[in-house]
């Protein structure tokens, strides 16, 4: 474990990623305290450029709402959707992939056909359809993102389990009389944790991108302020008020970047073969 930290800390990008993530986390935790009023409230003149009035450092939007307040509150939604949808897709993908890889045969055939089906469906278009049909809300958005993003998890798990299954220590466990369940949970799954963690951090990044894109298309929860929504709302007045769309985009970029950097750092630290190469 100490080894892990040394490698992880040695990766500058990963440390930068952690710092950015910490800031976004803090923003999402302290937003309600910093901006006690709702981000939907009008606090100043509309179309106030950034830097003009120190009470609204990032300017205001078309209805005089504070962009900075919107960003702070949006951080919570982005992280929430990113994390929860990733957890949900892990919950779908891990058991399916593990079962397909371990049992093989027809179980594998059936599960992989299903996975393949969900993988060839264009994911963003499918997410749009799902959210549109089930009415936009945080829940429908999380479900939609989870439904379109679990197939890579299942495929990863299946591949890992299939290669582990023929490792001799698994066969030895089988011979020593351990049950299938014990073998999967004690012998196989712990050995798949590293790649799953790496994949998960990349999935959070993708989920945040998808969430913002859906909100941008007007499919966000109408009751919550999100980064994608602010960009979408500012789109029509791009020429007059560039800042409305600009700052939330930077926030998304940095957050997504943070997760990708952390993912790469984890990959180097947890995957010694690659880490050595970077050395």
């Amino acid at each position, binding site marked *: 474990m100490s080894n892990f930290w040394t490698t992880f800390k040695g990766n500058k990008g990963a440390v930068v990623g952690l710092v950015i993530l910490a800031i976004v986390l803090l923003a999402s935790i302290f937003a309600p305290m910093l901006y006690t009023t709702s981000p939907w409230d009008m606090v100043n003149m509309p179309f106030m450029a950034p830097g003009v009035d120190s009470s609204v450092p990032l300017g205001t939007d078309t209805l005089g709402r504070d962009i900075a307040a919107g960003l702070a509150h949006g951080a919570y939604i982005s992280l929430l959707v990113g994390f929860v949808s990733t957890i949900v897709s892990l919950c779908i993908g891990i058991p399916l992939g593990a079962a397909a890889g371990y049992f093989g045969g027809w179980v594998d055939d059936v599960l992989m056909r299903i996975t393949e089906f969900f993988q060839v469906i264009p994911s963003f278009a499918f997410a749009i359809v799902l959210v549109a049909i089930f009415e936009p809300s945080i829940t429908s958005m999380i479900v939609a993102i989870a439904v379109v993003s679990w197939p890579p998890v299942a495929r990863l798990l299946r591949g890992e389990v299939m290669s582990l299954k023929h490792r*001799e220590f698994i066969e030895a466990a089988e011979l*020593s009389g351990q049950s299938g369940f014990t073998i999967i949970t004690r012998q196989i799954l712990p050995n798949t944790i590293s790649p799953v963690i790496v994949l998960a951090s990349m999935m959070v990044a993708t989920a945040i991108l998808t969430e913002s894109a859906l909100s941008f298309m007007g499919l966000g929860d109408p009751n919550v302020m999100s980064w994608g929504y602010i960009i979408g709302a500012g789109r029509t007045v791009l020429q007059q008020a560039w800042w409305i769309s600009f700052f939330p985009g930077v926030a998304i970029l940095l957050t997504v970047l943070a997760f990708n950097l952390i993912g790469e750092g984890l990959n180097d630290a947890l995957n010694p073969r690659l880490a050595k190469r970077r050395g």
Partner: protein
Amino acid sequence: MTDPIVRIEKLKIALPEGADRPYAVDRCSFDLFPGKILCVVGESGSGKSMSANALMGLLPEGVHVSDGRIRLGERDLVGLTDEEMRDLRGRRVAMIFQEPLSALNPLMRIEDQIAEVFEAHGLLKPAERKKRAVELLTEVGLPDPARAARAYPHQLSGGQRQRVVIAMALALEPEVLVADEPTTALDVTTQAQILELIRTLQVERNMAVMFITHDFGVVAEIADHVTVMQLGKIVEEGPAATVLSNPQHPYTRKLIDAIPKLRAGRAAAPARETLMEVKGVSKTYRSGGGLFRPVREVHAVKDINLTIGRGETIGIVGESGSGKSSFGRCLVRLQDTDQGQILLGDQDITKAQGKELQELRAKVQMIFQDPYSSLNPRIRVGRTIADGPIAHGTPVDQAMAEADALLERVGLPGAGKRYPHEFSGGQRQRIGIARALALKPQVIVADEAVSALDVSIQAQVLELLDELKRELDLSLVFITHDLRVAAQICDRVMVMQKGECVEIGPGSQVFDNPSHPYTRSLIEAIPGKDWDAEAA
């Protein structure tokens, strides 16, 4: 004696910082003579491959020659530019590698890969290059060379690919051939053919050969001169005959002594009651099938009959694809059988299910081949050993205590709290043995259990296995491709070919007086068997 073509003088190869020692090769000198084969022998980590790579100018990144000379004729190769070195590679010094399966580009036809050698040095016209490729393939004895030239690597067998690599190395008639364990990955009969080929070509062309190997049998077969390396230093050198018959350095003696001799190691034990009985077991693999594909069948195991007596050691010998491993896996039911019975008492392990299977398996345990994949990297070794008894209902504390006792018995006291990566290959194999014993089995199936180990470690593990077997009155089914090992430890030997048993009998009979032509060809192919006979 003629002048050497290559003189390596006080060569020092520096390893990158943080390696286990500062120099991979430390002040080593040796000469290569035209028409002679120098064998550089050593165990893994001895620096033998590094010196070969240095001669080719192909050292891995971060590793470099820090001192000494490598003279090729009048030129010193140390300090040549990349450009100059490239001109020599392939033209004056050529190399063949250990892994024929990965030494060829999978996406290119054989003829194109051979033609490249000429192209690299700007020789011949494109059409002539391909013609030469076919000629070269003929020369290295590939059947149907015209077709092989058009083939892709995956369409050829391991031995055929190694011939292609040799053809490639010979294309420009180099003066020096560097061979880095070229037969280690091959079956014994293929190995014999490739050794023969290298020997013939080398004599015909008066080439100097530097042959890297870990196997003294191979040395006895082809070497003119021997250099023994240990941890980057040369410990002994001399004419092959002298070194083999009268080794001076203790390390050389230890290596040579550790090689099992090819003669029945013991008189067959007196027959005792039958413990396990295999009746007509068959296993066929079917692949493909489906809407648009025909089914392909491989008979991995075909109608095998065998009785295993209490306390008996049975060797199962064969080349890759002989079905010996499949058969071993059937014995412990890692593989379902199609036909036949495997009886332990009156219970049939091929039919048992659930609780009955769990109990039967406790009586027949296995030791695996690869010490690096046979232990779960995330579980402490004590727990790995205890897992079996725990699954069978032993209380955790008691199982862990037994595991510690077993580790002590296999020579690793106090190892239980550590993780597998802290152990060497030989130690891991001892842990594997302890795990197999944890369920107090009656029969142990050892599948190539010592093949991955260096020869000195191999001897220790075999000895341990033999002691335990006697102490616990175990029966042992020992699966191996190595006839020497089988000869040393087995009471009876079964020879398998293409899934069938071609010969079975006491070790002395099978090795000294083989009745089946295949057995004879296997024994004939063992490198260094004449040397053995002399030593005997």
